[in-house]
């Protein structure tokens, strides 16, 4: 039975259709593995009872009407605690929302459950998605299953680990500055941040609204593709979601025989000093492999790359300070008992409920938006954002079809290694944030291991709404 957890979602689907095993056995096997893996702290909520009930219902549907059942029938998924799931505690791993049970699900989750998906639990994350190592959770750090003394990356650490440790075949995370791609690379799984607007943010607890996107983690490209397909699409509930046709990513996956005709841009500014030697070597090897598969490798320049991190931290923190102002203890969330005035209710609720990193970001975000500083910081950062977007536009129109870059300058670092310096932790995001600033799709593809057996990945960065082509390229690379 334990071999069930090693299957891909596609294999699980086949097995269920062939009656090789039941949904009850499948979900049961995953719940067992989750209870054996508590040390990883990947889940903050496990929906055992609900999942077993849904598994029984799935088995009934499969018995009665097999061919009509949607793809995810009976298949478990893990969902980042940032995404609301109706009836399940959803707290963005913050004390301020501990105990909050939403009366509705996020659109992305609803879409997957409509396709039969069984939510097996909510995964651990950096509080309010603010972090790059999953050490900022109010419910304990997550451990990397490959080396438990190391971080899994963040902020979607729990979702990455759920897939990497076979606790679920696929999971959902969010990516605002790299929070899907970086933990995917630290744990050796696939992770994708879709184009901004591709997936509805309705029901996703907001961190930075112009940057946030929900995306999938999976162990295979096929599973990644089908999960992305399931969650994508225009949603009238999200005014920033885009009316763009959602291709069938899965059926288009094998369209490319090889990579002839595809120009892959390698941005020289991403290969400056600071990348660990083994990471750079592995990525250079991957570039050679892509070359041998027929791609044309083109050196490109994204001149404003060095300013992306600064622009990101101003914009993201400013937007976060605004988004998190809703946590005031009035309509939902936790608040202290003895308070005299409304004002002190706000101040104490937030002081008690938010962790240190969240407080830092709110204070900085408030500062850069405050009178006298708005122009110098926020407005300036938005202008730099335009320059970064234009860098990508020029590269795509003049030189290349897709861009290849590192995801992270290092492999998974040790727990506690970067927690002493706020800035040092921020620097971990240097290669991922430009993609969020430009709203482009980013796909993290495992490509090697370092001498400590720690995974290394490269990322593909595509034109807006080019997810299908990116998945096809990754498919050719992985053959």
């Amino acid at each position, binding site marked *: 039975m334990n071999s069930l957890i090693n299957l891909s979602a596609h294999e699980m689907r086949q097995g269920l259709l062939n009656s090789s095993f039941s949904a009850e056995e499948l979900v049961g096997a995953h719940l067992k593995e989750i209870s054996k893996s508590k040390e990883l702290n990947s889940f903050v909520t496990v929906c055992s009872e609900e999942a077993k009930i849904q598994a029984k219902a799935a088995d009934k549907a499969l018995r009665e009407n097999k061919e009509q059942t949607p793809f995810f029938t009976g298949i478990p998924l893990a969902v980042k605690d940032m995404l609301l799931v109706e009836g399940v505690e959803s707290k963005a791993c913050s004390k301020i929302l501990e105990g909050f049970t939403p009366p509705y699900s996020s659109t992305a989750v609803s879409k997957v459950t409509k396709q039969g998906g069984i939510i097996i639990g909510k995964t651990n994350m950096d509080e309010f998605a603010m972090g790059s190592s999953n050490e900022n959770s109010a419910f304990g750090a997550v451990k990397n299953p490959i080396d438990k003394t190391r971080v899994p990356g963040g902020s979607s650490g729990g979702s990455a680990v759920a897939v990497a440790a076979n606790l679920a075949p696929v999971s959902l995370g969010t990516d605002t500055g790299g929070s899907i791609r970086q933990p995917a690379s630290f744990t050796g799984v696939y992770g994708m941040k879709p184009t901004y607007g591709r997936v509805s943010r309705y029901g996703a607890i907001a961190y930075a609204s*112009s940057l946030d996107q929900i995306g999938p983690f999976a162990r295979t490209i096929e599973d990644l593709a089908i999960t992305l397909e399931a969650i994508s699409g225009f949603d009238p509930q999200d005014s920033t979601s885009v009316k763009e046709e959602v291709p069938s990513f899965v059926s288009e996956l094998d369209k490319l025989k090889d990579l002839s005709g595809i120009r892959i841009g390698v941005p020289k500014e991403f290969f400056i000093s600071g990348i660990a030697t083994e990471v750079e070597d592995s990525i250079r090897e991957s570039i050679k492999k892509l070359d041998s598969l027929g791609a044309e490798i083109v050196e490109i320049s994204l001149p404003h790359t060095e300013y992306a991190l600064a622009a990101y931290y101003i914009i993201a923190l400013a937007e976060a300070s605004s988004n998190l102002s809703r946590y005031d203890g*009035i309509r939902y969330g936790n608040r202290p008992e003895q*308070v005299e005035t409304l004002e002190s209710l706000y*101040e104490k609720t937030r002081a008690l409920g938010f962790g240190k990193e969240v407080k830092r970001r709110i204070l900085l975000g408030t500062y850069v938006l405050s009178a006298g500083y708005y122009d110098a910081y926020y407005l300036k950062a938005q202008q730099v954002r335009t320059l970064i977007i234009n860098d990508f536009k020029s590269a795509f129109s003049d030189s290349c079809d897709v861009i290849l870059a590192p995801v992270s300058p290092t492999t998974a670092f040790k727990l506690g290694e970067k927690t002493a310096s706020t800035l040092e932790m921020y620097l971990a995001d240097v290669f991922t944030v430009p993609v969020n600033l430009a709203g482009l799709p980013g796909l993290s593809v495992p490509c090697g291991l370092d001498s400590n057996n720690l995974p290394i990945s490269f990322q593909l960065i595509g034109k807006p709404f080019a997810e299908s082509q990116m998945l096809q390229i990754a498919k050719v690379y992985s053959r």
Partner: protein
Amino acid sequence: MSLSKDEIKHVSRLAALEVTDEEVDEIKAELDDVLSYVEQLSAVNTEGIEPTSHVHGIVNAFREDVIKDSLSLEEIETFAPDFSPAGFRVPKIIS
């Protein structure tokens, strides 16, 4: 650029986030670090560059003026800290 303790206190009032005197020192060091880093943007020539607030430039995402269901009072009661049918109860506003 470095934040003074008064500035931190001012910002914490704007953010409705109580910061104790002990916390101010720790926060000051961390914020100063990050502020110094982001200051490098002042070196970028942004003359005539439009700021971006939305990457795809969608404007006026309207919906039809149709009444839809919202949360019921029963649903609100499941998560509101202090709720009466008249509204959310709060401590006194004027002290």
